[in-house]
């Protein structure tokens, strides 16, 4: 998904070039968000475990109960740590929110949003990316700075972040912002949404890391140093 076509090392007749990819601010937002989101998920997990009621299933059938075995909980030392989970959650939520707001503001002001917001072609491109990644199609999807699947994923995860902040606020202050809680269908539903959004992050993370590994070092390094190495035929080098 995150590969750059033609980024393989070819011999002779080509020239390496460093191409700016991720602005410094975006890299900071990204890497600051990583531990914040991890700790928000962790502390959320400590809170959830006080009442782990969710599952995937219908009626009497449960495909997957959203909890681990008691033995595993003992092993992970996550029993009876609700107070700790709440203390961390209600501290880090500010940093998570601030980082997210700054990121969105930056992309809006800098024009970076043009690379990130999906357009009407993105859905079809994302489909091509998926077929290509699953080796069902040999047609390489069009790859700008981000391909269609990336645009959708990176925008969706920001919308999910907003969803987490709002559903979180709805269950944090269900009386003071009772209109918001009502908007989400009440306290229990808001908590339900808040939980499944977290599962969504975990799935996003798994796919994201998989794609980054697949895209290779050059792509990963660009998220750290900002530039990507691009090989170009020397003859086409602009003056």
């Amino acid at each position: 998904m995150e590969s750059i076509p033609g980024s393989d090392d070819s011999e002779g007749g080509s020239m390496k070039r460093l191409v700016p990819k991720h602005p410094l601010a975006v890299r900071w937002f990204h890497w600051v968000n990583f531990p914040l989101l991890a700790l928000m998920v962790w502390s959320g997990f400590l809170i959830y475990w006080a009442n782990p009621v969710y599952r995937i299933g219908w009626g009497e059938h449960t495909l997957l109960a959203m909890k681990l075995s008691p033995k595993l909980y003992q092993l992970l030392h996550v029993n009876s740590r609700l107070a700790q989970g709440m203390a961390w959650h209600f501290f880090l939520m500010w940093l998570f929110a601030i980082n997210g707001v700054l990121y969105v503001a930056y992309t809006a002001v800098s024009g970076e949003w043009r690379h990130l917001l999906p357009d009407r072609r993105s859905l079809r491109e994302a489909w091509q990316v998926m077929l290509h990644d699953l080796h069902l199609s040999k047609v390489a999807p069009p790859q700008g700075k981000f391909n269609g699947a990336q645009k959708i994923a990176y925008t969706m995860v920001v919308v999910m972040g907003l969803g987490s902040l709002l559903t979180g606020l709805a269950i944090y202050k269900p009386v003071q912002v009772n209109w918001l809680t009502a908007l989400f269908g009440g306290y229990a539903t808001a908590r339900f949404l808040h939980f499944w959004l977290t599962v969504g992050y975990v799935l996003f993370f798994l796919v994201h890391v998989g794609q980054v590994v697949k895209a290779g070092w050059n792509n990963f390094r660009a998220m750290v140093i900002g530039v990507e190495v691009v090989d170009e035929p020397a003859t086409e080098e602009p003056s």
Partner: protein
Amino acid sequence: MSESDGGRESEGAKEGEARAESAPPASPTQPAADLVANEAAADEPKVPSTVVAAMPSLAATATDADVERQLTRLSRRGFLTLAAGGASAVLGWRWLISRPGDSGQPWPLRRALQTNEALWEALWDPTRLAPTYPRSAAAKNPRVNGRLGLDAKADPAAWKLAVEGAAAGPLTLALADVQALPAHDLVTELRCVEGWTIVVHWTGVRLADFIAAYPPAGRDGAAADLRRSDSMPPFLALETPGRGYYVGLDMQSALHPQTLLAYAINGKPLSWDHGAPLRLVAPMKYGVKSLKRIGTLRYSFVRPTDFWYEHGYDWYLGH
């Protein structure tokens, strides 16, 4: 990190030399200049022209070598920054969890909870109400949770309510004294701090009415004026008989129209495990604040302690 960078650098240099024999000359500076401008790293030197002149064998491939060097520098800086950031995060985390505890939490987390409390106290709008439901929505057999301070063998008839800090001096009241105040029904959600909720039908009197009937002594000893918050004690402490369980409540929440001293659930007197004969119902707080079997009610100018607060929870726990 720096080791691998070093490795890359020498690799790049070798590559450059190897290419020196075959690759055609190319303009060396344009891409690097773009990059430098973008990174605002004007101090990053390009390969000085004197070096190129002194090493004609390199001149042919100055571009690729240049790019490699630039890449190495940027990599070193980028990854060192990332490592430093990661290390600071880990050190910060270890520092934080090793801070001395303040009621069961490292003090920085306790401060954060108190800051949140100050913010929400300031934003508090007393007209905001917890959602209410039709009686039919109330649970038929409301879940029982928390028996701290309760006693199945206690005799409800022998129960008395002690009121401390009242303008009239220490008071001892019977249930009939409380029930003499206007009765209110409230069908609302009880939200447990654990995360579950239940809709309960309560009957009781408004705590605000009770406070008006038995007003606290102000700082000067005279009866405090409920409409003037500066004359009121800012807190209320509630305890079970024998102090097996105790909570602290801010006065704003105590005066909220939905805060009840409840004596009935689903239209029937409270059972012992629901807090017979009189309990608090505070829908703008997590359930833990709704103390059962009130033995003592005390007006307080100092912030009362709270059972779960001492176990690491937020004192405020306000919704």
